[in-house]
């Protein structure tokens, strides 16, 4: 066992992990942050996407010990402390960017990484960026719409919800 400490959603946390403990296991089972989902567990679906030092990664394909000392952000860290949704989360709600919701945490975390790198992505850039996130309900259309709307809102533009 090894002890790890990291910052998760702004809070300092620590714990004991095995070498083989995955980051997603540490988050879900160690810290009880179950918003980060395990979908395929074969690194393809993206339901487990979190940010490590600001970059989106698949938490099912990263060892917890390998991110010792890192700054981690999960879906639980997206809304304000009073529960007010982030612009991106609100856009998913307004544009109906989810049905069952299982993939949504990964979609939101992946999209948040895109918008911090590219404030004005084209539809094609959004669709290419989501290559690592699989949704079996929506057909992606409203997810893409939500992300484009969130980008516009963050740039100070307004797009009507449907």
């Amino acid at each position: 066992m090894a002890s790890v400490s990291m910052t998760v959603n702004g809070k300092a946390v620590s714990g004991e992990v095995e070498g083989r403990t995955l980051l997603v296991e540490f988050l879900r089972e160690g810290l009880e942050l179950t918003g980060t989902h395990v979908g395929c567990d074969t690194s393809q679906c993206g339901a487990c996407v979190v940010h490590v030092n600001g970059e989106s990664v698949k938490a099912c394909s990263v060892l917890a010990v390998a991110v010792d000392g890192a700054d981690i952000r999960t879906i639980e860290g997206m809304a304000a402390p009073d529960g007010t949704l982030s612009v991106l989360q609100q856009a998913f709600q307004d544009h109906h960017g989810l049905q069952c919701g299982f993939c949504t945490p990964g979609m939101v975390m992946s999209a948040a990484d895109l918008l911090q790198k590219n404030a004005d992505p084209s539809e094609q850039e959004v669709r290419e960026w989501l290559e690592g996130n699989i949704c079996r309900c929506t057909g992606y259309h409203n997810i893409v719409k939500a992300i484009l709307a969130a980008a516009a809102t963050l740039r100070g533009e307004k797009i009507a919800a449907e």
Partner: protein
Amino acid sequence: MYAFDYVKPASVADAVKALSAEDAQPISGGQTLIPTLKQRLGQPSALVDLTKIADLVGIEAGSDSVLVKGATTHAAVAAHEGVMQAIPGLAKLAAHIGDPQVRNRGTIGGSVANNDPAACYPAAVLGLGATVLTDRREIAADDYFQGMFTTALEEGEIVTGVRFPIPEKSAYAKFVQPASRFALTGVYAAKLKGGVRVAVTGASESGVFRWAEAEAALASNWSPEAVETLAAPAADGMIGDIHGAPDYRAHLVKVMTKRAVAAA
């Protein structure tokens, strides 16, 4: 995953030492290795993390070559100004490996050491005639790749970087396998001072290979039309699976070569 020890060396020398332990294995970005271990297809005694070694991370763009150190991520290569200017084909290749999350973790050293027959980087390394640098020697690309998942690396030898010569022009064209985003067939075509090189990934059961006929045709006439006159390479020895038959892949080699030349 079976249990293993996690080792975090601070230097290449310490990593080499840690890898001398029985069944110890290096890990870089882990985007292939961790899923493999989750399937229990391997049982290392220890994983030696190369990504925390400062000497193994970074890019040095010089006047006639670009050095990408071993634990540099695909995302870093894709976004590097020096690479984009010197070898735009290489930056674009890195920008389309896997998906954004894989690119944020996966590294050039891991890709080249694993030598997956459908990986993108081996095509660039062989197509540009790059040199693979290790903790103990330098290996020319033509000597490095020795078949599917097989390289010239010795037990415990670490890829510390890849040095790419800057070509006159080059590009990579990939026909994507839509589920995995690996190359169903990918071609890196390069016009270098020393001649033309064309390297193919994803197609052959022997891993990445050079298409000699296309190189000869393009040396005298660098154009998609020069490739058009050639017969596709033999289907014999090409990969056949549910995604594509051998003759389909052979056909794709020709198509992707034309596209790479047109894009360069």
